[in-house]
């Protein structure tokens, strides 16, 4: 086991798969010579050469479109969309072309492609560079959607995404790039469609994603001091969704809280809450409560951004209040 940062783990996951499969190619803006604006792809150009690791013009529609055409014809491309907010500039490619083409053609084409993107807030970039947009992707049939919370998962899930025969949107939380953790040496793969119980709990279940996972874990620590035994489930794979693990925990505890970085309406938390309200209704002992950013664009100033996003304090207070 090596200690890697999240950004190093991303590069390691890509390198593992590029080493293994010569059909894996990687393109994006400033990803090659500069190693990515978040330095998550440093060293790949040197290792795999300029044919397989390429800088593109600023043209997200061309980037994703090219990856799609290549995936249809034998490559396994990885593309980087620098900030997830920029997915909006190529959303037709993602949501209408990549997601639907296998289905519309009756399965004639496969689209083994990965779109990696830096996601989320906490970096004072303002409303056009800080969105958490995994729910946009989750709402579109035909896309698989991953968002790791640890360096080990960053490597293992990214490698599995590259090997997956379907299109995957891979969300890398910007606020996690600098975090470090143990990452298995050698080949490492984590299966899509599996949630992880990061902390078992008796009294309630907190379901969280990406950067909200460490916050939920800290909140659970503090709640245990208040005699509330809160469990934490790391969703990590929104599509496919491991409802078995999530609902299993909810059935045990009878209380469900979700912690989302995205704004209030129509997030993945609403989806999971709705599933639970349908399928675990009889096991529920109280309201399902979602903790989210309010339904506003994210403000830029540090004090505003910090207060808008779900914080450990907010999680603790919300759970405490609801469990009374």
């Amino acid at each position: 086991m090596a200690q890697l940062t999240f950004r190093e783990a991303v590069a390691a996951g890509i390198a593992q798969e590029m080493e293994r499969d010569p059909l894996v190619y990687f393109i994006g803006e400033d990803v090659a010579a500069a190693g990515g604006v978040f330095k998550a792809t440093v060293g790949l150009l040197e290792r795999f050469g300029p044919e397989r690791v390429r800088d593109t013009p600023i043209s997200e529609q061309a980037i994703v479109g090219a990856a799609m055409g290549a995936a249809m014809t034998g490559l396994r491309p990885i593309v980087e969309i620098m900030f997830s907010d920029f997915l909006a500039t190529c959303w037709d490619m993602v949501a209408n072309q990549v997601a639907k083409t296998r289905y519309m053609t009756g399965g004639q084409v496969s689209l083994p492609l990965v779109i990696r993107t830096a996601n989320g807030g906490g970096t004072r970039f303002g409303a056009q560079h800080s969105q958490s947009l995994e729910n946009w992707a989750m709402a579109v049939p035909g896309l698989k959607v991953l968002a790791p919370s640890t360096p080990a998962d960053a490597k293992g899930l990214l490698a599995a995404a590259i090997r997956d025969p379907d299109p995957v949107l891979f969300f890398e939380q910007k606020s996690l790039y600098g975090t470090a953790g143990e990452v298995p040496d050698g080949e490492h793969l984590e299966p899509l469609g599996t949630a992880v119980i990061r902390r078992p709990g008796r009294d309630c279940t907190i379901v969280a994603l990406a950067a909200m996972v460490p916050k939920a874990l800290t909140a659970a620590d503090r709640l245990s001091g208040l005699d509330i035994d809160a469990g934490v489930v790391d969703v990590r794979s929104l599509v496919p969704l491991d409802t078995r693990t999530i609902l299993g925990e909810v059935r045990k505890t009878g209380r469900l809280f979700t912690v989302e970085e995205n704004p209030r309406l129509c997030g993945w938390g609403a989806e999971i809450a709705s599933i639970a309200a349908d399928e675990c209704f009889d096991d529920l002992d109280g309201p399902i409560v979602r903790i989210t950013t309010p339904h506003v664009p994210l403000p830029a100033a540090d004090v505003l951004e910090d207060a808008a996003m779900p914080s450990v304090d907010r999680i603790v207070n919300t759970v405490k209040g609801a469990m009374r």
Partner: protein
Amino acid sequence: MSTRTTTPSGIDRSTRLRLYRLMVELRDFEQRAYELFLENLVRGTSHLALGQEAIAAAFGVAMREDDYTFCTYRGHGHTLARGASMAGAMAELLGRANGMMHGKGGSMHLTDVTHGAMGSYAIVGAHLPIAAGAAWSAQVRRSGQVSVCFFGDGTTNIGTFHEALNLAVVWRLPIVFVCENNQYMEYTPIRSVTAVEHPAADRASAYGLEPILVDGNDADVMYDTAVKAIGQARTGKGPSLVEALTYRHGGHSRADPARYRPEAEVREWLGRDPVQRYRERLLAAGIDEGALAPIDSEAQAKVDQATEEARQGPPAALEEIEAQVWADGGSTWRN
């Protein structure tokens, strides 16, 4: 800029007969599709390319078997020109189980990957970058394949046109972009919304390309153009952007009577019907009626047969609804 109208290269007789046969097949197929629509058998929309057959046919004949075609919702001809099953296409229009995509795509999305027909795309401009991606793949796999991407005049004003052209040139991709300038978008004339007279050719220089403006209703010219552009792509000399002037005989989609077009204009273009014109040229070139008449009747028979097969097909199967979202064949998103 002036358009070329004669064929300098002396295309051989058998190629010319192949061009003629393909044009007649596309014409007959689409006329039949229109009749079936009038019988209320085509439930969805459809966009016919009657009058534009020379372009699809010429490229169809000029392409190598493993080359890639990317086209639009107006793509019956481009798909069939690659050798895709006529019955499969017709059945898809009728929403039958034996349709090319089992009824899941419909007229606007005809695709036959086994024949290099990589899809018909219904969002204007989307397939230009996708076609560039297939060319990129061919380039790095060193397969020698060429990607040919067809689109309309109206498509030249959307952003993907610009992004795809720039990327293709910068990466020197083996691709041919073919703008079929049929003068209209849906109901609006292209000249009323475009900054230049020739929406593709006048923009070639913005990508360091030569302007290529040709008569899209002349099968010989189109064939020469295709051979040259494909050859350039195949030999590593990079992309071309072709603007082919043409006209659709009917409306934009199945229900459009196309009254927005001046009568004289329609009349003039009907006089330049690519199929009729080519037939006359072949006769003038000494190919006799005895060689052409069987082609005409074989095409009719082929369309009859395809129609019959399509009509025999059962309605699309309900299991298809949840099939083929994923590579495992299903659509499961949870455990």
